[in-house]
């Protein structure tokens, strides 16, 4: 009997091996199919979609739909393409990710290494806030953003994403710092190191992996958000809202190839992050669901 290396692998014969690979391949095709459809059809002239087969490769290859989607397509009333909305998304995502990650790191540090009475309750409240349906905050948020003069602006969206991102970023850092030896922090305290000094010199240097996980998680979530963008975006709509407007527009011919190119443009940043740092992305997903 060959040594069982993988935990739950069972002895299987040739036929069941074929069966297993067969199923795995079918599911691979299922997951790949929409991506193939998007890429292939974004490179076709429109006539090849309306008068041809969506599952086929282009006969005439063209980048025109991409150019259209990026800089010429009608979004709402303006023929601007998705470019300005892509920039909106970047202007929104970068500060929101940076701020929520920094706050999460500090909170996680306080909650694990400077524990005080009631810190468990605070963490519990933060944790629950990660999972609320955001419909429950939409009405007051609209009112408050209006009062603050931030409605329909990028800073308003940044505020919203920071506020509702702190829960997850704190969760990540707290769980990570919880396994860091508290004795080291104690020793540094006895040596006279203060709060920030310990954070800067002891905690941060070991925080690399969790910073990557948190940044990726926040980036993906905020980039992909639609509800807040659609509710509070106003004149500064992010990419997801613009893509939806492009696809749902009821005027004129439906330019499917442009829609597909636009969809890929909206997906590209998070997809690139996934390809480069998929390992960390998966860790973030798991940490966000199976805590501990």
């Amino acid at each position, binding site marked *: 009997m060959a040594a069982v290396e993988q935990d739950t692998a069972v002895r299987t014969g040739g036929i069941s091996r074929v069966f297993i690979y067969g199923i795995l391949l079918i599911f691979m095709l299922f997951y790949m199919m929409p991506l193939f459809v998007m890429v292939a059809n974004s490179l076709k002239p429109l006539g090849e979609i309306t008068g041809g087969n969506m599952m086929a490769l282009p006969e005439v290859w063209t980048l025109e739909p991409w150019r259209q989607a990026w800089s010429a397509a009608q979004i709402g009333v303006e023929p601007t393409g998705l470019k300005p909305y892509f920039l909106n998304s970047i202007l929104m995502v970068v500060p929101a990710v940076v701020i929520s990650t920094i706050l999460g790191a500090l909170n996680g540090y306080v909650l694990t290494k400077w524990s005080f009475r009631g810190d468990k309750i605070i963490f519990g409240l933060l944790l629950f806030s990660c999972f609320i349906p955001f419909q429950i905050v939409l009405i007051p948020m609209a009112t408050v953003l209006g009062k603050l003069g931030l409605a329909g602006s990028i800073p308003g969206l940044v505020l919203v994403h920071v506020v509702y991102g702190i829960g997850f970023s704190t969760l990540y850092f707290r769980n990570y710092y919880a396994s860091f030896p508290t004795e080291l922090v104690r020793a540094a305290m006895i040596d006279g190191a203060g709060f920030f000094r310990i954070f800067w010199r002891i905690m941060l240097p070991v925080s690399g992996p969790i910073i990557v996980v948190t940044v990726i998680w926040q980036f993906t979530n905020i980039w992909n958000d639609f509800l807040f963008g659609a509710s509070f975006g106003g004149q500064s709509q992010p990419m997801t809202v613009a893509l939806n407007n492009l696809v749902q527009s009821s005027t004129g011919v439906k330019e499917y190839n442009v829609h597909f190119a636009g969809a890929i443009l909206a*997906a590209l940043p998070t997809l690139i992050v996934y390809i480069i740092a998929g390992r960390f992305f998966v860790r973030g997903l798991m940490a966000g669901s199976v805590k501990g």
Partner: protein
Amino acid sequence: MAYQSTGVDFRTRLQDWIPKLVLSPSLAAMLIFVYGFIVFTFYLSFTGSKMLPSFDLVGFENYAKLWNLSAWWVAVVNLMIFASLYITICTAIGLTLAILLDQKIRGEGVLRPIYLYPMALSFIVTGTAWKWIMDPGIGIENSMHLWGWTSFQFNWIKDRDMAIYTVVIAAVWQTSGFVMAMFLAGLRGIDNEILKAAQIDGASNFSLYRRIVIPMLRPAFLSAFVILAHLAVKSYDLIIALTGGGPGRATELPATFMYSYTFTRNSMGIGAASAVIMLMTIAAIMTPYLYAELKEKS
């Protein structure tokens, strides 16, 4: 003695305060923007708010109206259909793929990221892609016809009775790989000595999984259920991109109902009431789970 310790006292006092000061902006933000807002919405659900928030209390009127609205019932029934199928199918696919992938598969490193990449996409992108793939005019139906299967029909997305199932298809596509990853992590955590012993005892592969492996995956089942259930209740973007709630009202969910009643139909009180019910549903699912998780750790 006393004056000697004052310096230390001040320092320790300050050190005591700094952590709380650092935490306080986040705490304040959470108390206002999460819990304060929840209270505010809860209050609004008992007022006669129409287009703007108003503060005249009307008791349970909004809740009574809500449960008498056929549109709300459509949304609730749709959510039940969607959530039960979404959770069941995602779990079944996730578990199957995880078990199969765990059989010393060549190319696991290629397959796993392919199963999981949809999770990195926005629901708007997923919705856009599947909207046109399932469109009878240009999508799968058309392709099948071109390939010679001329009687093939797949027009669910245009069919009032079937449209909700297209939402299930797209949502399963997006999340089932993630469930696979959760089960795979669970499988990799099982001690293989137990399995070896059972194999030596002559247990068949099937009973090995049914009797030993799957029961040991209980925590993964629980996590998967909680995550999928709360995603189902929150589903909004996918509906907007895929069907827009249509045809007619056939694919409305509570999340889309809340949005349209609050912001386009000027019935903010009813919208707030529906949001409160959504929150309570999620709280009923999440609170016991989070409580158990927190207790286990401490």
